[in-house]
């Protein structure tokens, strides 16, 4: 068996339960079928996750949450990632809810509660685009206060769950800073175009907002540093999904290597293949530890730690996942590049996950910047 993150040891039972549910709910057949539907997810499976209370695992009991923290929620992300679950979970319970917890004030409570209860789903739309914002960088989404209330304008591309979410949680540029807004996703002012990508298990969309009425979810303005902190925070659940997927990829490869025979031996007995699996295993063990160490920082409110850990784990998880998927294809040989086994799906997921929040090069550039600040 591949090493579990040692940090997750105290939650072994939760972890085992989550794994079992994910494995039966998101089999390869179900995942492929759900991804092929119009909205790209399995409504029944989603209801089941809601019934289990998973969307509110990390939320405060005061608003109906389980109060178990981001650490435990990341166990769920990891297993959903492992199954390539086509689910609103990452966008709604991971990204949008996380943004509301981090940046929202009491105006956000109702929305947060409904996301936790699963009565609505949300997509997070970052107005600065991908990567970390700068004070003077471009902003695709701007918010303007009018006598009739706030309106948001602009364009955002490749937004996770952008076309299927009920609500958009929007970070948009205001006159002097940034703001956090709720926009009803179903109104005419929001034009949503599903974006077909290589990975059908992630539902991306291009959004165009034209004077879309918005509700402000926090009275104080949001600083650029806080938006950066949000990106750091978002990296954690995404990286948890990537780490889980990478482990699953390796596990499927190991299974193949143990059973497939060639030249009269199981091909897993060939040393060169073993060594490559060992290298993947080491890399993903480390990546998992990074993810769960960062989840601990989230739960401890350690913003300074996350400034480094966020870009670090995002970059490493993306690299490790992609590498694991590439090796999985190669080590499967001929069937590896066909659609008959799942490793290709993991590869395509790795491509999409690697762009979702920030590409690896940008994450490392951010890391360099933050480290230089720390050294100065």
């Amino acid at each position: 068996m591949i090493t579990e993150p040692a940090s997750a040891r105290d939650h072994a039972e939760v972890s085992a339960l989550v794994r079992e549910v994910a494995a039966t709910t998101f089999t390869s057949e179900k995942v492929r079928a759900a991804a092929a539907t119009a909205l790209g997810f399995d409504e029944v499976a989603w209801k089941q996750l809601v019934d289990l209370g998973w969307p509110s695992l990390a939320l405060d009991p005061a608003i109906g949450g389980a109060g178990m923290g981001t650490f435990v929620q990341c166990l769920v992300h990891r297993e959903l990632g492992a199954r390539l679950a086509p689910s609103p979970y990452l966008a709604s319970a991971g990204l949008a809810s996380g943004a509301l917890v981090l940046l929202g004030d009491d105006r956000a409570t109702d929305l947060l509660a409904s996301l936790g209860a699963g009565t609505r789903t949300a997509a997070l739309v970052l107005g600065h685009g991908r990567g970390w914002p700068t004070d003077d960088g471009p902003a695709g989404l701007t918010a303007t206060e009018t006598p009739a209330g706030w309106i948001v304008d602009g364009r955002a591309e490749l937004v996770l769950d952008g076309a299927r979410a009920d609500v958009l949680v929007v970070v948009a540029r205001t006159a002097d800073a940034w703001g956090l807004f709720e926009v009803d996703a179903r109104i005419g002012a929001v034009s949503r175009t599903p974006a077909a990508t290589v990975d059908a298990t992630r539902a991306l969309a291009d959004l165009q907002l034209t004077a879309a009425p918005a509700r402000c979810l926090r009275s104080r303005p949001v600083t650029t540093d806080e938006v950066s902190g949000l990106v750091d925070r978002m990296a954690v659940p995404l990286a948890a999904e990537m780490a889980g997927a990478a482990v699953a990829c390796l596990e499927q490869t190991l299974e193949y290597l143990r059973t497939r025979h060639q030249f009269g031996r199981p091909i897993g007995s060939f040393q060169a293949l073993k060594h490559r699996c060992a290298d993947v295993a080491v890399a993903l063990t480390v990546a998992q530890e990074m993810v769960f160490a960062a989840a601990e920082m989230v739960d401890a409110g350690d913003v300074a730690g996350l400034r480094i850990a966020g870009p670090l784990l995002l970059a490493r998880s993306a690299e490790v996942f992609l590498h694991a998927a590439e090796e999985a294809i190669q080590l499967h040989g001929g069937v590896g590049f066909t659609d008959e086994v799942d490793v290709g799906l993991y590869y395509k997921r790795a491509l999409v996950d690697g762009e979702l929040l920030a590409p690896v090069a940008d994450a490392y550039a951010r890391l360099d910047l933050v480290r230089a600040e720390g050294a100065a």
Partner: protein
Amino acid sequence: MTTSPTASTSPAPGGTATLLGHHVLGPELPAVPYDHPFRAEFRGWLQQHPLGPEPLEQDARIAHRRAWHRELAADGWVGLHWPVEHGGRGADALTQFMYYEELALAGAPEPANTPGLILLGPTLMVHGTEELKKRFLPGILAGDEAWCQGFSEPDAGSDLAAVRTRAELVGDEWVVNGQKIWTTFGQYADLVFVLCRTTPGSERHRGLSLLVVPADQPGVTIRAIKQISGDEEFCEVFLDDARAPRDWVVGEVGQGWAAAMTLFQFERGDQGYTDHARMLVRLAGVERRLAESETAGLVSSVRAATARARHRDLWVRIQGLRLLNYRGAVLATSGEGLGAVGSMTNLVWGELEKELGAAVAEAVGACGLRAGRHDTHERLHTRAASIYSGTSEIQRNIIAERLLGLPR
């Protein structure tokens, strides 16, 4: 949807084609100089025969390539390395090297029907009877009959000698039963060359024969395998009492392994000539597109810098491949075989191809995720490169054991 230029470098048909300059290929090599008369002649022809961009959809893509094959063939620009008696020009390997470089600089695809042109045709010339040569060679050259290869089998994988497909002589016909896999473009083929066991009970390399089996018959079922790229480039071929005429054997009955080995020599000796040039042309396109993406804000300057370092690394490695190919051509011209250098070019090529495919898609940032684009497709498509023509692992085994003399 954000648009960005698609991958084709070909102009629309009609006018004159723009050919890339030789500098794209790297430094001049003495035996194939850039001012060689052959290059000038072929460039002249290519300039007058522009072709449209290659379609993304597979059937259309194959049709496009077959049309191009016929266009080339009509003026005698296919099978240059074939002897004059069989319709070629008897060109040596160095001419062939220049031919493929110029094709690449024109942004043109290779002729379709490579299994016939590169593999079966030349193998027929060595091992085939006069009758078989007369029957099949003209159709290969003209592009009228498409061929595919029936070698690999489901349980054999990289172990080719584990062939289980068998053929039995019943009257004047071979009756063939078995299953083949990884047959490139089997669904478009008219004829299959099948390695099968004709001596019952024989083992490994003995008792095999190389038969020519018509594809269009009830006993042959060809099922395409869907790839992660969405392509169906490879097929399974099911042979259930498939028939082949008694005389359609390439080489002696029972000597199929020798014919297959001849054929593999051609595989490594020819396709190698073209790949570096096509890669260099693609890389030049990637470099151009990256600059456009940076200007358009599709990629950050940091990401662009990272990509540039990678492109430089790719360029360096492709130059290495080019030199291996070049030396292969020089060796071939003097009548020598490639030996284990074939495994080297194959290994270098397969690994490069994957990385180049990834670089193509990454040059447009997140746009490279969007379905229905050449660049997106290319990244997925090239994942097979280090597997399908002998995995990189098999090539490393061969190099280590045959070239370096390490114990098995």
